[in-house]
């Protein structure tokens, strides 16, 4: 029987029971590979549950920096009897099964085309520890130790990580290092180490950082000057508000007085969250909420108010599979349309699509400038895949000369100078009017904010012409937005091609790899990563310049394609759907096979299984 041979290019999957303390051990494993200079991308596949249900942690090791989900498992660490059968089935032929052989398993439970590695984890742990919780937690570290021997991971690297992790609890460092060596020593003494899969020290990680997108967005909100956060707990967005809280406590507490330069309210629901954001932003503070699809549904009425009354608001939507409660712990890009046209009546909203934690940070900070400049809600559309998974990405950067762009706000001095103030008056021809903060001036600049129609001076009116004038100005303002949002980024193939692919958000790593896979089969594809809505001219030019344009998305209804057709008046036949929507992250293999099916049906789909 063959044994898979690969250096710095394989997938390890851990099958665990939720609540067993495996998460930190698994993260330790992924980090140890990164510390050896080898890019690794973990993905947590977890149920909507706190304890007892199956959970998986998949680590793709790729010196070539392929960070999308790959599909298939080369080494399965099967720690969950509930999912044993499906876990064993998912191993590629020639792959490896690592399991706890303290209790014997019947031969029928194995496959004869895989390599089985048994380690008596429970026995080792029980012999060493008496406390049941300790036995469980250290069992996790013991398997990390055994894996370090099997995969040739340097133990020193893991020891350093443990020392950093427990630097405030020194007693735990020694205990964890001991558990690590229990597993490692057992493997070295009893098994042929290393196996065919190996980690070899490299220098491909560089200056990159390892963080989840939600935390990066929360940090971006701190740098973006947000002072008010109102939110309601919902998976997978919760850790965004929690990260904002954490970073505010680190960076925004007055050292002398302990007073806080931020106000965070856990609201009673999403309606109250967005209401508070709108109230705070109306009053001149930078404010945001973090939510997911169900929250967006609940916020619709308020979003229309903010659009029509022209109040800045930043909404982070960490998307999950809908509709309704859907799959709360699975990823999708399914809120594109419900955000782009949120609320009743004619509305259009600015959307930003970060591809990774680095862009979550950048776009979070940018969203506050855009919202203030455009006086309108701005959505940052993350998804569970980048929001809740640690991802290797470029380090955060900040220019200290940068200043918040508070947009067109008239001050008391400007009002006194005799400048005309009309809240909905387009003075500059860009569709963006001036506003005043409440309390600015005793007699000038006050106005009444309302969701009802009004004239250019914010006076209530039901006259059709005044209403229409305002609605057309809002459209003009949206045209201005096109010039302010991040432009799409184009990656052209090495040779001229009539094939194009449009993608966005967390699809990036899978798309990058798919383009390579297709190129290897002689199929050249130009790729365009859309980073914002409204679409700039470059997006329409890209569509016009290709005979076949694939729109790659993680939803059922091709929502971005709909938006492209609607806003760009593009013939729908020119945009070919590539849709992945089972709740797992899209893979390069899926994209490449889908594109090849259309343009080169003679290429068998198996050609894209190879990742070498």
């Amino acid at each position, binding site marked *: 029987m063959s044994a898979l041979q690969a250096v710095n290019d394989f997938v390890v999957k851990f099958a665990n029971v939720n609540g067993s303390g495996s998460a930190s051990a698994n993260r330790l494993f992924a980090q140890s590979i*990164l510390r050896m200079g080898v890019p690794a991308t973990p993905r947590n596949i977890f149920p909507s549950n706190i304890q007892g249900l199956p959970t998986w942690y998949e680590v793709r090791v790729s010196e070539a920096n392929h960070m999308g989900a790959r599909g298939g498992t080369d080494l399965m660490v099967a720690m969950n009897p509930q999912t044993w059968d499906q876990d064993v089935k998912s191993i590629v032929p020639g792959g490896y099964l690592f399991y706890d052989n303290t209790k014997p398993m019947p031969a029928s439970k194995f496959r004869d085309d895989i390599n089985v590695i048994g380690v008596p984890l429970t026995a080792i742990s029980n012999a060493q520890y008496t406390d049941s919780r300790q036995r469980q937690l250290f069992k996790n570290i013991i398997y990390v130790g055994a894996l370090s021997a099997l995969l040739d991971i340097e133990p020193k690297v893991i020891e350093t990580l443990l020392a950093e992790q427990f630097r405030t609890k020194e007693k735990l460092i020694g205990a964890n290092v001991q558990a690590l060596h229990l597993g490692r020593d057992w493997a070295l003494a009893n098994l042929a180490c290393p196996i065919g899969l190996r980690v070899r020290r490299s220098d491909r990680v560089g*200056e990159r*950082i390892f*963080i989840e997108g939600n935390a990066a967005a929360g*940090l971006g909100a*701190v*740098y973006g*000057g947000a*002072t*008010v956060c*109102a939110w309601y707990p919902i998976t997978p967005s919760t850790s965004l508000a929690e990260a904002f809280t954490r970073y505010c406590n680190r*960076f*925004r507490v007055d050292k002398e*007085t302990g*007073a*806080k*330069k*931020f*106000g*965070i*309210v856990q*609201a*009673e629901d999403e*309606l*109250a*969250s967005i*209401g*508070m*954001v*709108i*109230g*705070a*932003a*109306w*009053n*001149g*503070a930078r*404010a945001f909420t973090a939510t997911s699809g169900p929250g967006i549904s609940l916020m619709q*009425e*308020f979003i229309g*108010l903010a659009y029509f009354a022209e109040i800045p608001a930043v909404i982070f939507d960490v998307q999950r599979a809908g509709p309704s409660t859907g799959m709360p712990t699975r990823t999708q890009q399914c809120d594109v349309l419900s955000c782009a046209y949120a609320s009743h009546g004619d509305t259009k909203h600015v959307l930003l699509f970060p591809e990774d934690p680095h862009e979550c940070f950048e776009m979070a900070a940018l969203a506050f400038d855009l919202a203030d400049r455009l006086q309108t809600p701005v959505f940052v559309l993350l998804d569970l895949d980048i929001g809740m998974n640690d991802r290797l990405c470029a380090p*955060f*950067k*900040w220019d200290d000369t*940068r200043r*918040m762009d508070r947009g067109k706000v008239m001050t008391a001095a400007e009002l006194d100078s005799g400048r005309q103030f009309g809240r909905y008056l387009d003075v500059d021809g860009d569709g963006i009017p001036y506003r005043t903060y*409440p*309390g600015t*001036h*005793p007699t000038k600049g*006050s106005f*009444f*904010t*309302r*969701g*009802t129609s*009004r*004239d250019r001076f914010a006076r209530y009116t*039901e*006259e059709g012409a005044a209403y229409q004038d305002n609605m057309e100005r809002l459209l003009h303002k949206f045209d201005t937005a096109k010039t302010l949002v991040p432009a799409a980024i184009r990656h052209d193939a090495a040779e001229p091609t009539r094939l194009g692919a449009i993608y966005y958000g967390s699809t990036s790593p899978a798309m990058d790899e798919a383009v390579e896979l297709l190129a290897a089969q002689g199929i050249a594809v130009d790729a365009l990563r859309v980073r914002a809505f409204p679409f700039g001219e470059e997006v329409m030019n890209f569509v016009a310049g290709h005979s076949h344009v694939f729109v790659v998305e993680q939803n059922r209804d091709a929502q971005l394609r709909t938006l492209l057709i609607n806003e760009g008046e593009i013939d729908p036949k020119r945009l070919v759907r590539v849709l992945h929507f089972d709740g797992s992250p899209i893979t390069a293999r899926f994209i490449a096979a889908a594109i090849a099916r259309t343009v080169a049906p003679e290429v068998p789909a198996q050609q894209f299984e190879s990742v070498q």
Partner: protein
Amino acid sequence: MTYLPKPKLHHPELATNALGFTRRDYEGAISTLCAGCGHDSISAAIIRACFELDLQPHRIAKLSGIGCSSKTPTYFLGNSHGFNSVHGRMPSVLTGANIANRDLIYLGVSGDGDSASIGIGQFAHSIRRGVNMTYIVENNGVYGLTKGQFSATADKGAKNKRGVPNLDEPIDMISMALQLGATYVGRGFSGDKTQLVPLIKGALMHKGAAFIDCISPCVAFNNHEGSTKSFDYVREHNDAVNFLDVITGRDEITADYAPGSVEIVRQHDGSLLKLRKLEAEYNVNDRASAMNYLQHHHARGEIVTGLLYVDPDADDLHGYLGTVPTPFNALDDSALVPGAAALDKLNASLR
């Protein structure tokens, strides 16, 4: 229907307050509510309260939801920023505004449909959080703009204009506000401005969540025989427990009162609430007994009015959040943005 400004002509002998403003400076546009509407009396009471307290009109933010009552902020304080938000959601907008700038005075105006039906959740939670605000519900027991449907405060058995009785139990917003921790709670009647103006003044000077339920008969849809929110019914069943007078720093207490008949409460800002007791046993500082009193008198068909509870030393949401004294909307980059060096350090910890 469009916006109707009031003529700016002033009577030359119109009285001015300490800031040199006349009462007219606290007015807004001409009301478009029905002639005789109780809500217009409440608007007039707000104008008088702000004038008498020498408040800077532009330092007040007035917020409302949707409905007849929520239209009224257009009709007072024309130099204040106003926000007519969405139905039942004024409390969250006000809460956010308050967090953004702690230095303004926040006046929330709502109705019984807006606050007791669609918005009861936001009403409850804004009170719970101790938002520093004056929250007035103009309570008429019906939906006016949609022509006379019962609201959630309509009494069980009360009849609508067509004689159909209400089948549901009423929500008593005063009892709710007390239970939810409001630190200033009063009930007034739009037909009794001498009682209402000081109630509003005390609320405006109060630090913390101040709630006023003001019975405000709807002349179009709920002022008939069989209604328990009509002018006649409220006058007949009004059980005022006290009469309030609000004394700010520069006024002096001059009159003498019989011992026990007057209680003086000093609020956080130094203002004095002078309470002339009409119900000797009523204790305005006891939340539990206030709730008890209300329940007993409600069962007898009486409408208890007056200042019903006050905690003069209450804290507010900013106190609970521990925020800086500077309003958030005045904090600049140097106060808010940690900068590149801090980010580099953070990057290093993420490798």
